[in-house]
């Protein structure tokens, strides 16, 4: 599904290298987790994959669904089925959450040549999905993320994911800022979307989230590259011993 080959990235404005040859293959239906200390390049990887400005790819490639995506605009990548759940969802005053969701969904449908949903059809679907995530009608009416609590913002991200039905979901520290109950709710939302055709890349600092979203593969990232990969128990090892042993081993 997503194949990243020797990806090297630096900041556009300063010659600072962030990613130093990332290799990662994610097949359909797999859940991969990336863990790593602060500043290891985890979030940068998610931004570069989804097309955020400010980074320069100096080497390497990323193919998604058979297409080289690094040259595509963010909306083109989204329409191919790539989704990034933001660590810090952006507040957009003046844009209603519903309008935003419907515009996004219909833009993607249009780009795929699928008929756009009518307001009534859309409303029916969004109400049902929102209910599962305990998002009430009032929250749907408010401007995007404005005045949302940390938990509400993350649930809103999962709602978008559920509505857009992407093939590849990247979750950037979705557990940050969540209490245990909120994390469970978000994890349930994610698990409900797991299927043999949909893959996940879960970026997290802590093993906690991985108790709820059990990964097939865990990668440890440091210094802009993946230094170790293993099964779900690798996350437990990190939780118990910290990153220092792994980093010492790598150095």
């Amino acid at each position, binding site marked *: 599904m997503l194949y990243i080959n020797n990806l090297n990235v630096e900041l556009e404005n300063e010659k600072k290298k962030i990613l130093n040859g990332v290799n990662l293959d994610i097949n359909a239906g797999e859940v991969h987790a990336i863990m790593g200390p602060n500043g290891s390049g985890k979030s940068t990887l998610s931004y570069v994959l*989804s097309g955020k400005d400010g980074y320069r790819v100096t080497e390497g490639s990323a193919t998604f669904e058979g297409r080289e995506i690094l040259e595509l*605009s*963010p*909306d083109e990548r989204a329409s191919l089925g790539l989704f990034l759940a933001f660590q810090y*969802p952006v507040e957009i005053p003046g844009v209603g959450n519903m*309008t*935003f969701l419907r*515009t996004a969904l219909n*833009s*993607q449908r249009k780009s795929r040549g699928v008929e756009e949903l009518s307001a009534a059809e859309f409303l029916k679907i969004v109400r049902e999905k929102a209910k599962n995530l305990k998002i009430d009608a009032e929250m749907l009416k408010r401007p995007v993320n404005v005045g949302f609590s940390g938990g509400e913002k993350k649930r809103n991200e999962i709602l978008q994911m559920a509505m857009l039905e992407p093939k590849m979901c990247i979750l950037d520290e979705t557990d940050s800022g969540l209490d245990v109950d909120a994390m469970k709710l978000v994890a349930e939302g994610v698990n409900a979307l797991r299927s043999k055709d949909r893959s996940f890349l879960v970026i997290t600092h802590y093993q906690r989230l991985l108790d709820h979203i059990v990964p097939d593969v865990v990668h440890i990232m440091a210094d802009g590259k993946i230094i170790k990969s293993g099964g779900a128990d690798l996350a437990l090892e990190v939780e118990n011993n910290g990153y220092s042993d792994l980093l010492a081993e790598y150095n």
Partner: protein
Amino acid sequence: MPKTNLTEQKISSYSLPTEASWAIKSRKSALNWLETTGLPNRRDEYWKNTDPSYFNTIKKPERNKIDYVENSIFENIDRINIVFEDGYFNASKSDELLLKGIEIDTISVANQKDNHWSANYFGVLEKSSQVPVERTLASLNTAFAVEGLAIRITDKIDKPISITYLHTNDTSDVLIHHVIKIEKNASVTILESGGVASRSNCLMEVFVCENAEFDHVRVQGRSHEKIAVTHLFANLLKDSSMKSFTLTVNGKSIRNEYVVDINGENSKAHLGGAAVGDRGFSQDDTIFVSHNNPNCESRQVFKKVLRNGAKGVFQGKILVKDGAQKTDGYQISQGLMLDDDSSFLAKPELEIYADDVICSHGSTCGEIDNAALFYLTSRGIPMAEAQDMLVLAFLNDAIEEISDESIRTIIGSRLKDWMVKRHKS
């Protein structure tokens, strides 16, 4: 050209109409003020950022045909329809004006009558608004405008009165002067739309009596060549309220002046404006709100979206007089620049002589929020559409100042249509 010569020449291109003695008196008084004070020039404090020569020159501006016969944006709502064509009231295109609770005459008729109700109101607010800042383009209007309406509202009027200014001919230099009085406990919504003329000078004096309500929504025609100056003078008595919103899209130079005098307790005045323009666009809102009594509220919410070298000007003042305690005054002006060539010049002013008031003003100038743009595009929304969403979101606070939801929706969707057309053109 020296100020006096220019003013003399300008005056000589008009003549005073023959009317009832009260009207002649008002016009002569305005003319006298204009002669002694002179038309504005760049050295005047409130004309530093907008070139007054667009409005002053004797030479008529270039003709333009872009907004000829643009249908009223309000045509699909149930309304009392009044049409002006090239600056003149057109009775055959307007609805019957004999309505319960409404008295309407054109000023050309009203000013002939010795005992018309407007005798005590025509030119009165224009005159009182000349101090401390001279507004001689308004004096010019009072002296020479022969068209406009005298509207007296004596009841709560459900249907809005819609005034459409058709521009069907190569017309310029149209002067229009309205006098509106909303009697005690009465209310009305006035809608204005259309291009008026290639150069226009429109003035509205509004008297809002006790417990009366005045709602005003104005959409200025969208010709790129349009030159327009407007004055809205309002006087509010106790327990009354006014709301005025203006949408300006395109134009060469548009200056909208407001003078609002709050002369009774528990009154509210809300002013809002949204302006969108590019290239030679220069749009100016110059506002003076005076709190003369306690327990009143005023808001000024003005937003401008500027592109390709456009210029936005905001000069807004809140004056709180001694004794006007518990005043709640708010003012925000914001410019959104879509490129590096545009400019937004803001002069927010507060002058407060009472000690127990809440007054705030803010002014910002910025570009599109890149984080928000990435968020929207990362969900599959194409860049151009995402930008439009953010532009509309930026203007939304000003549009929210319109109290009627259906009118608010019309304004929002018209703005959206224009943006989509812009991408296609």
